[in-house]
């Protein structure tokens, strides 16, 4: 089992969601996240003073899946999420030891869908 964490652009969320639905990913967790780094947010002005938005806004998808599905999901996110410009985000794939569904204590593969 793997957990796929994908940081994506806000503007690409709808496309990625459709792409994931097509390959039958039924559920994922979505978070609003903020990135800080050398690349700054948009330049803004207020009453004559110029400032940067402090952070870069992105979304994070957390998807749990069986090993054999990882490459499909990665392909879907990459093809739907890519603009080719700096800031398209990253996908991280993490090994998962155990998954337990709280509702009925189902574990592992049967708890994934």
């Amino acid at each position, binding site marked *: 089992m793997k957990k796929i964490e994908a940081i994506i652009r806000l503007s690409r969320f709808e496309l990625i969601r459709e792409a994931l639905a097509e390959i039958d990913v039924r559920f994922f967790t979505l978070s609003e996240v903020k990135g800080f780094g050398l690349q700054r947010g948009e330049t*803004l002005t*207020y009453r*004559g003073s110029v400032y940067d938005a402090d952070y870069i806004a992105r979304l994070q998808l957390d998807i749990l899946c069986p090993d054999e599905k990882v490459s499909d999901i990665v392909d879907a996110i990459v093809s739907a999420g890519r603009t080719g410009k700096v800031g398209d985000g990253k996908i991280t794939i993490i090994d998962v030891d155990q998954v337990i569904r709280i509702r009925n204590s189902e574990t592992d593969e049967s708890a994934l869908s």
Partner: protein
Amino acid sequence: MEAVFTVNNLWILVATVLVFVMHLGFAMLEAGFVQRKNVVNILFKNAMIISIGLLTYYLVGFQLMYPPDEGLIANIMGYFAPFDWSGGAISNYGEAAADGTAYTGYSDFIFQGMFAATCATIVSGAVAERIKLVPFLVFASIFVAIIYPIIGMWGWGGGWLADLDFKDFAGSSLVHAAGGFAALAAVLLLGPRRGKYRKDGGTTAMPGHSMPLAAMGVFLLWFGWFGFNGGSVLSADPNAVSLVFVTTSLAAAAGAIGAFIMSYALFKTYDLSMVLNGILGGLVGITASADVVTGNSAIAIGFIAGLIIPLSIVAFDKYLKIDDPVGATSVHGVCGIWGTIAVGIFGIGDFSLGTQIMGTLAIGGFAFIASFTIMGIIKAVVGIRVSETEEIKGLDVGEHDMHAYSLKEDGVFQLTAE
């Protein structure tokens, strides 16, 4: 004649209600221009100032501003006494109207009382986000109870400026410059917000948390200004009141255009906060002369006030390093002086430019010195500034243990049905 009296008196009461709405306008404008961590604090101050203002004006202000007798002492200081309740009612409306009386003593008091409170509200925006609550309220009480009535008496209560034929129709100087220069004194004693001026000499932008609130505040102020200026006719005279409506609105509109052009020239962007301040600058500017200028002159006065606004705000903010979150010193102080001087340039009638300049400088100077003295004493005795920690956390939590916007809105803490 009774009907005439009734109409006149009713208009003064309607104007009173309009001036009352300006307090909502100030509250929304100031709330919009501060950071979200200080919104409860600024609203608290606004709620207290209208209340303190009316009470102190009843207790001493009104009689100090409109002393019943002439004479040297009355001419400089007025009298310390509560509003004379026996002077409230009118016994015969018809006779009163024939004598040229347009309203009851009660109407007079409540209309003037609403004005007095606006003057102190001007200060609250400039000192926002860092002043201690109670010391500020002590200052505001003394300001509305004594300083504003003394200044008002000079021009409107038969004082020395009235004797010199100084013209300030509804208070470009007597209300707005007085408030603006009191604000300047307070800001100088208080210092800038933490982090506003960086060690490298740069200025940090501290954006207001809600432009919709600020815009609503300015529209409400424009709305209320129909009463502020229109009521200052002191009767429902059809020509005079409608003329004042026209000049007031033309100046506000021209102020918006002036600020739009100048702020684009300076910043190469369309800064909403500047256009909002420009509208207010135009309104403050026309307030001294609204009943004695033509439409063309009103547009010129408002347009120039609008051009002044971005220049003045940048001069205070970036070069003099005087941190005024809402621009009160520019809107009320600088445009108040401009409006008063403009009477000498555009006013139809016998107005002396010299008297106008002298009068507005005397008013601004007195308001500044008196406020600096009072605020200076309060600063020396109890301190006027919140602690560094409190300023960083925000005055809402620091002074009031409360958030303006519940943290539950941020999502994590939101509990829904499932």
